[in-house]
C-alpha cells in the first residue's frame, strides 16, 4: 500500500541543514495498522508528511497504492491526497465552522452534491458517536470529541489510508483508549490501512500489528509487534519495550536474592499461547526438578502473550540440561542470570 525506498529528507534553514530522514526503507501492507515510534526529533512527523506529500523527499522513491508520487502532476497529487486521510495531535478543526461543516469539508472541496453530503456526514458522525453534536462548534467539545470529529473528517472522502500524527498525545489515558478503539474499528470495518506515529509504546501495543522504531532519522528496528516486543535488539527499542513489558527483575527481589546467593537464577522467555502450566508439569514430572518461581510477568500483545519467568531449580545437573533442551524445542528461551 505504501512503499518508501531509500527515502532521505534534508531541511535547509538559515544555512543549517538537518538530515531528518536517512535512507529510509519501509513497506506497509494493505490492512496494516503500522506504528512508528521514536523520541522527539527522530523524524516521525517528517516520515508521515512525506506519505501525503505535504513534504517532498530530498531523494528516494515513495509509492502509494501503486502510484509513484514524484511522477504525479499537482492535480493528480491532490486527487491521491483524497485517498489519504490525516488526523493531527492538535486536531486542526475549523473553529469558525460547526462540527457538521467540519466533517463535510473534504466533500465540499470535491463539489459533492448537498444531499450526498448530508447523508455521508450524518453517517460518519454516527460512526464516531457524535450524532448529537452536528450543530456544535469545536470550542464546545472535549479533546477526545474533537479527535473523533477529526477522524470523521478524515474518513469523509472514503480514503484507503489514514495517517495519524500523535493523534492521542494530547489526550488523557482513558480518552486515548477510546480513540484507539475507534481507530481499530476504522481499520476493521472500512479496511483502511493506518500509519500511526507515537512516542508511547502502549499505543503500539494496543492497536498495531507492525512497528518501526526510529532514531535520528534512521529506522533502527522493524517487524511484527509481537516479535519486536518479544525480542527487542536495539537498546532504544529495549527502552521502549520496557515501558510496557515489565520483564526485568524488580529491585526489591534483586536485593533479597543477593543476600543468599547460593542458587542459580534462570530467566525463561516465551511468546505465544502455549500454557506455562504444562511446561512446569514436564519440568516436575519428566525431569524431576524442583522449581521455585521468583518473579513472573505476562503482557498481552495483539492476540498473543509475552511471558517471563525467573526461576530457581533444584535437581540433577543432567536432568537440568535435558530440561533446557526440551524448553528450547518448545520455543522457550532459557538464560542463566547473574544478579
Amino acid at each position: 500500500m505504501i512503499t518508501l525506498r531509500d527515502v532521505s529528507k534534508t531541511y535547509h534553514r538559515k544555512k543549517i541543514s538537518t538530515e531528518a530522514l536517512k535512507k529510509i526503507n519501509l513497506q506497509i501492507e494493505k490492512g496494516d495498522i503500522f506504528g512508528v515510534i521514536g523520541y522527539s526529533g527522530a523524524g516521525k512527523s517528517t516520515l508521515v508528511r512525506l506519505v501525503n506529500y505535504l513534504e517532498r523527499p530530498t531523494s528516494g522513491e515513495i509509492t502509494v497504492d501503486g502510484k509513484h508520487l514524484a511522477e504525479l502532476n499537482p492535480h493528480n497529487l491532490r486527487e491521491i491526497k483524497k485517498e489519504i486521510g490525516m488526523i493531527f495531535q492538535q486536531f486542526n478543526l475549523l473553529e469558525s465552522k460547526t462540527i457538521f461543516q467540519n466533517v463535510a469539508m473534504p466533500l465540499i472541496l470535491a463539489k459533492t452534491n448537498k444531499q450526498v453530503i448530508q447523508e455521508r456526514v450524518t453517517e460518519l458522525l454516527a460512526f464516531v458517536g457524535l450524532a448529537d453534536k452536528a450543530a456544535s462548534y469545536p470550542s464546545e467539545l472535549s479533546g477526545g470529541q474533537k479527535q473523533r470529529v477529526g477522524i470523521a473528517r478524515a474518513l469523509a472522502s472514503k480514503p484507503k489510508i489514514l495517517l495519524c500524527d500523535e493523534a492521542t498525545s494530547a489526550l488523557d489515558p482513558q480518552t486515548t483508549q477510546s480513540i484507539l478503539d475507534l481507530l481499530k474499528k476504522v481499520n476493521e470495518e472500512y479496511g483502511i490501512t493506518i500509519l500511526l506515529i507515537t512516542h508511547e509504546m502502549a499505543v503500539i501495543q494496543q492497536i498495531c500489528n507492525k512497528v518501526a522504531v526510529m532514531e535520528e532519522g534512521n529506522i533502527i528496528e522493524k517487524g511484527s509487534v509481537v516479535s519486536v516486543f518479544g525480542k527487542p535488539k536495539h537498546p532504544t527499542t529495549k527502552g521502549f519495550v520496557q515501558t510496557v513489558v515489565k520483564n526485568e527483575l524488580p529491585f526489591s527481589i534483586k536485593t533479597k536474592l543477593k543476600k543468599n546467593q547460593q542458587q542459580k537464577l534462570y530467566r525463561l522467555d516465551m511468546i505465544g499461547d502455549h500454557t506455562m502450566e504444562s511446561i512446569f508439569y514436564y519440568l516436575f514430572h519428566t525431569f524431576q526438578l524442583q522449581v521455585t518461581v521468583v518473579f513472573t510477568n505476562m503482557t498481552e500483545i495483539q492476540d498473543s502473550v509475552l511471558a517471563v519467568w525467573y526461576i530457581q531449580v533444584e535437581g540433577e545437573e543432567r536432568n537440568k540440561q535435558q530440561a533446557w533442551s526440551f524448553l528450547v524445542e518448545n520455543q522457550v528461551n532459557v538464560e542463566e542470570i547473574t544478579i
Partner: protein
Amino acid sequence: MFDTSITFGQFIQAIIDTLYMVGMSLLVGTIIGLILGILIVVTRPSGVVEMKWIYGILNPIINIVRSVPFIILLVAIIPFTRGIVGTSIGTTAAIVPLIIFISPFIARLVENSLLEVNPGIIEAAEAMGATPFQVIWYFVLPEAFGSLILSLTTATISLIGATAMAGTVGGGGVGDLAIVYGYQRFDTFAMVSTVIILITFVQVIQSIGNALARLIRRN
C-alpha cells in the same frame, strides 16, 4: 456657548460628507487591501503559493506608501487625482488620496489577521487535497473573519481621522468643520460639537466592530 456661525444645515452636510468619504474609501480600500493582503500572505516564502517576486515587489510598495504622511500624500498626488476624477478639489476628489492611504494599511491589517490563523488548519486543508484557492476561501478567510472585522474597524477609525485633513483639498466633512470654524475662527461651539460628533462616530463604529467580531467568534 451657542454663539456660533455654523448652521444646522452645515452640520448635516458635514456629517453626510464624512460618511460619504469614509464609506467610499473604505469600500474601495477594503477590496484593494484584501487583495493585496491575501497576495502577500500566499506569495511570501513558505506561503501557500510561494512566489518570491510578487512578494518582493508588493511588500516594499506597501511600506513606502504607508510611510508617507497623509497630508503629504494628499498634496503629492493632486495630478493623479485630477486625472482620475477630473478635479483635485471637493469631496469626491478627497476620496482618491483616502483610498491610496487606507489600502496599504488595510493590506497590512489583513496580512496580520491571516497570519494569525493556526498553521495546522492550512496543513489539514493541504492534506485534504485543497487547491490554493480553496485553502484561502474555505479555510483561511473563514477562520480569520472575526479578526478581519476588527481590522476593518481599526481602518475605519483611521479613515475618520484622515477625512479631517481632507478638508485641505476642500473635502468638507465634520473634521473640516472643526478645523475651519473651531480651530481657525475660535468658534468654541463648533469645536466642541464636532469633536463630540467624531467621538460618537468612533465609539459607535468600535462597538459595532467588537459586537460583530464577538458574534462571529461565538465566545
